[in-house]
């Protein structure tokens, strides 16, 4: 495979026969896949294909019915979300998932604080750790939210909430960045800010990026590899142009009525 030729190292993250059933419905069905550092993999598929569920299984929000998730070859299936975050799997959510009544800055500062391992400190004042606040402000600056830092997260516009979501992911400083439709619902002029950020992370060279995205132009411009999920199955995996033109993808997308995106 072309992406293996590009980086021959051990996969950072891999899934092996990953499956989850909700009652009779199999949302993710026996998906095995490997992700390597320095690459951006786009995960595409029609609505309901299991993309977000697959993300939830990898980042620990859901336990799988069967199969394993490995991080640097080590089985991490039994670990919960907090432990996976601590080991470098960072996740941004599709449906914005913030602390609504805390300020924008506090949303990010809490992330920086977690990263600094200071959550259990009961004796000092949070406000005296200026380095955490400054670091949080730095990440807000990257997503152009500095001016709104003292507002409650609930007061932000949809696009700004998405940006805050990304600032939180950046503040986790993970090895693996998982973006779940980062540009969904954003206005046209906001999208480039996010795409530039993703490009910037990619340019660092050692980060593994996973991106669930519907907009095919975004996928084409960023992805080194495309994985296609359909009805919970992995149906295609490989070089972007190759995958986009494969009959199975054409059919999957035509079937879901989103052919105009392809």
């Amino acid at each position, binding site marked *: 495979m072309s992406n293996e030729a590009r980086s021959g190292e051990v996969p950072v993250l891999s899934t092996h026969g990953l499956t989850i059933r909700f009652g009779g419905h199999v949302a993710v069905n026996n998906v095995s896949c490997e992700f390597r550092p320095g690459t951006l993999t786009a995960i595409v598929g029609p609505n309901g294909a299991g993309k977000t569920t697959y993300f939830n299984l990898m980042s620990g929000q859901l336990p799988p019915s069967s199969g394993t998730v490995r991080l640097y070859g080590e089985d991490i299936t039994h670990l919960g979300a907090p432990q996976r975050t601590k080991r470098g799997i960072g996740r941004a959510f599709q449906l914005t998932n913030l602390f*609504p009544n805390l300020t924008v800055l506090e949303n990010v500062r809490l992330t920086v604080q*977690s990263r600094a391992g200071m959550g259990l400190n009961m004796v000092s*004042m949070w406000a005296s750790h200026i380095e955490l606040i400054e670091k949080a402000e730095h990440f807000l600056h990257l997503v152009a939210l500095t001016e709104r830092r003292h507002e409650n997260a609930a007061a932000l516009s949809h696009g700004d909430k998405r940006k805050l979501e990304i600032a939180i992911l950046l503040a986790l400083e993970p090895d693996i960045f998982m973006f779940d439709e980062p540009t969904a619902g954003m206005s046209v002029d906001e999208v480039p800010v996010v795409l530039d950020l993703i490009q910037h992370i990619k340019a660092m060279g050692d980060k593994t990026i996973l991106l669930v995205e519907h907009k095919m132009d975004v996928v084409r411009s960023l992805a080194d590899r495309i994985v296609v999920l359909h009805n919970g199955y992995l149906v295609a995996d490989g070089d972007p142009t190759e995958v986009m033109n494969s009959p199975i993808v054409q059919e999957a997308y035509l079937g879901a009525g989103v052919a105009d995106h392809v």
Partner: protein
Amino acid sequence: MLRTLLSGDLPRSRMLSATLLVVFIGLALAPFVVSGARSLNVAATICVFVVLVASYDLLLGYTGVVSFAHTMFYGIGAYGVGLALTGMGPSWTAIAVGTVGALLVSLVLALVIGLFSLRVRAIFYAMITLAVASAFAVLASQLSDFTGGEDGLTFKVPELLQPSFHLLEATIMGRAIDGKLITYYLLFFSALGLFLFMLRIVNSPFGRVLQAIRENDFRAEALGYRTVIYRTLANCLSALIATLAGVLMALWLRYVGPKTMLSFEIMTDILLIVVIGGMGTIYGALIGSALFILAQNYLQVLMGQTSAALSGVPFLANLFHPDRWLLWLGVLFVLSVYFFPTGIVGKLRAGTLAKVDRRP
């Protein structure tokens, strides 16, 4: 200096600062300002309730956990000291043994209840605490050989704290420096210390995580915080501080009994005070306790006077009859929840917050 003492959590409202100052000075000077055993008893009860309510708010207001076992921990503290003083005689060692023993029992119970139920849904935790607390209250009144049953235990405290003890021959501002006064200041300074300690906890990095968990526990997990650990820690802290409040109350009353220490009424009082004062504000516990306990003790007197003054008017005199004080307390509660859904502190702060640049 003041900023550090208050852990950077300043009242941020002139009205609030003024109210807090009045309550603080009132409690600090209570033995010299008010006369009579009853008034001092009210002041002491306020001191204990500030600690008890603030420790409950640590759970309810800051972490978003509903517990019905708070009076149980309060009772454990009271019975711990009561049993130790009864069994070992009136000594400071007995108080120390009772306190440490009670803290250990509370810690183990809080840990067990927490680890069993805090990982599941919040409603199960509420149910389990309700069951355990009821069982504990029944146990305390049934084991009559040990706990004195329904009658409770009356015991002696060390000499320094006995009302008959006089530290000085002279009086200060017409007030004898006796054991009752010393006990009052023991309560006052313990309550002050615990209050500032809790203010520090909620403004520490740990306290901020608790608020994050209250806001969105799913996201807190995704940030790398193991919420079950934080919830359990908050639960233990809250239980331990409630235990200390129980110790203080037992020392003040020189009596423990199921009605005064374990009854479900205390639990509802705590809930009411938290809501009236303002959930998620430690200051709310101070203002709420002062207001509630004053109303509980003096509303009846006040109504008696109103009723007497209105004795000519048939309907109104009846309406304000002292026997109806509970009705009016209820009306006051409903009105305060309706007009100040964020509590007194929330209301007082809301006005100023719009003007000042908010800190995160």
